[in-house]
């Protein structure tokens, strides 16, 4: 029956959708865990979208000036005043962790357990350092008087949206670090030798999603 499969693969997108939904088989041909992770990520997309849309709404409607994020998140390192530098470093750390995660998925499907474990551990460490930098950032802002109900730099809504959006994202990174460590340890112990290594791809989906959300937060909250 290989010819049927060839025929399906050469069909158009709509023909594929039609046959996937109409045929007497599972609609989404993938492990259930992967499909459920995608369903969760779509729901998470809505949560983060609602936060960002809420932020857009208050920022459009305020009459006081919005604090200049370029200055608020600047640091002076070795005598140089650098705008937004901490956020830039956090962005690079998160992208690096996304890269090590992609390599971990690759290594897992090649059944290279030791390398998968090391790469997942590196991803978790980079994620933990991201959270560490976020703690530093929060501490700095709280000491400067930024609160969810007001701040000395401008519109009061800055604090509430900042703590809500970055806090929820940081929570996702923290949960991801725990998730990574649990699965990485199981990979090291050989728990998935008989089950297969789809789980690493599923963890990868979650981790890349966290990076994806940061791309939008970086553009809309920090750069805008």
């Amino acid at each position, binding site marked *: 029956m290989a010819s049927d499969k060839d025929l399906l693969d050469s069909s158009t997108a709509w023909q594929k*959708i039609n046959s996937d939904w109409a045929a007497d088989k599972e609609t989404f*041909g993938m492990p259930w865990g992967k499909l459920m992770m*995608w369903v969760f990520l779509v729901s998470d997309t809505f949560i983060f979208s609602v936060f960002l849309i809420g932020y857009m709404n*208050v920022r459009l409607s305020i009459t006081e000036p919005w604090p200049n994020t370029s200055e608020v998140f600047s640091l002076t390192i070795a005598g140089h005043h650098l705008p937004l530098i901490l956020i830039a470093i956090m962005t690079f750390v998160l992208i690096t962790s*996304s890269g090590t995660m992609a390599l971990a998925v690759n290594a897992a*499907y090649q059944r290279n357990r030791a390398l998968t474990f090391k790469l997942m551990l590196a991803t978790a460490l980079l994620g933990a350092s991201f959270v560490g930098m976020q703690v530093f950032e929060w501490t700095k802002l709280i000491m400067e008087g930024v609160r969810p109900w007001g701040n000395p730099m401008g519109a009061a809504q800055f604090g509430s949206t900042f703590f809500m959006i970055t806090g929820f994202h940081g929570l996702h990174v923290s949960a991801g670090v725990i998730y990574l460590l649990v699965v990485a340890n199981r990979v090291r112990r050989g728990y998935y030798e008989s089950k297969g290594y789809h789980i690493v791809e599923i963890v990868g989906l979650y981790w890349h999603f966290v990076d*994806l959300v940061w791309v939008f937060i970086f*553009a809309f909250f920090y*750069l805008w």
Partner: protein
Amino acid sequence: MSVNEGQQHPLSMYLKVWILLFVLSTFSYLVDFFQFQGFLRWTLILVFMFLKAGLILSIFMHIAWERSTLVMALGLPTIALMFLITLMMIEGDTTNLSRGVFFSG
């Protein structure tokens, strides 16, 4: 070594995308560093943002190789967000206008 297990792609492709993401992030940061303002700023921010998001989704999250059935199931609800964004933009502008009228004195 199993043959038909999950998403398997050459390592070099992941490394290329990784480097590209670094370059795009540097560009986004430079938009702020050089203090580009106005239309140029928003355009550059959005272009770099969508390029990065597209690379992460299509390559790292393997959307490029998934069947259109999954892509459609993920994409259609997400596109519906455009409706909420549009409504909230209109609402935000209206609130801003009425605040301009009533807060001014």
